[in-house]
C-alpha cells in the first residue's frame, strides 16, 4: 500500500523504485514496543549482515522520540529463520 510516510507516494518514481530494488525496508514499532526487521540472508556472511544491522540501528537511534524516557534500546536479538535467538549487548552498538 503506497503511503507518504514510507516514501511510496512520490513523483520521483525513479528514485523510489531504485531504493526499493536496492533493499529498502520499512519498519514500525509494534504494540509491545518492539521493532522487527529482516536484514538479509545467511549467505551474505557476518560482515555484510553487520553493515545492514548497523544501518538499521543507526536509523533507530536517530528516530528516538524526544518524549521517550529511560533506556531507549532495551534489548537486541538477532535470529535466522529457524535458528536460535542470539542476544546482542545494546551498549555495544553506539
Amino acid at each position, binding site marked *: 500500500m503506497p503511503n507518504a510516510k514510507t516514501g511510496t507516494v512520490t513523483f520521483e518514481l525513479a528514485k523510489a523504485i531504485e531504493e526499493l530494488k536496492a533493499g529498502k525496508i520499512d519498519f514500525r514499532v509494534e504494540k509491545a514496543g518492539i521493532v522487527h526487521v529482516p536484514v538479509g540472508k*545467511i549467505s551474505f556472511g557476518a560482515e555484510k549482515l553487520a553493515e545492514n544491522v548497523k544501518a538499521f540501528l543507526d536509523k533507530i537511534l536517530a528516530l528516538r522520540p524526544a518524549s521517550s524516557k529511560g533506556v531507549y534500546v532495551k534489548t537486541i536479538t538477532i535470529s535466522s529463520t529457524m535458528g536460535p535467538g542470539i542476544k546482542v549487548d545494546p551498549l555495544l552498538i553506539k
Partner: protein
Amino acid sequence: MPKRSKKQIEAQQKVDRTTQYGPLDALELAVSSSYVKFDETVDVAVRLGVDPRHADQMVRGTVVLPNGLGKEVKVLVFAKGEKEKEALDAGADFIATDEVLEKIKDGWFGFDKAIATPDMMGAVGKLGRVLDQED
C-alpha cells in the same frame, strides 16, 4: 514439550542464552549455527523503551540497507502518461492498469511493494483494504 530435532538442539547449544554478544560475534554465530537447506533470512528485533500507545512515541521509518535484502523486490507502480514511462525505465515490474487493478481485486499479488504518484492515490484508495493486508 514439543520434540526438538537433533540439529536444532545442536544449534541452540552453540548459543549462550545469558550472554550478550557483540554485534559481529552474534552474526557470525547465526551464520555458523545455520543448519537448514535454504538461505535463511536474518531478522533483528529491538525492544525499545517507548510506549507506542502514545502517538508521540511512535517509531517508524525506512532505511536502505547497504547490502540489500538478498531478495528480488517486485514493484508495482500507480502512474500514468509520462510517469508511467519513467517508472518502466527505472525498472518497475508492473504498472497499475485497469486490467491489473481487476486482477488485484481478484486476489493477485505478484508484487512486493507498491508506489504511487500523488495524483494516482484516488485509484489506490479503492484498493486500500486489499493492499493493506499485503504490504
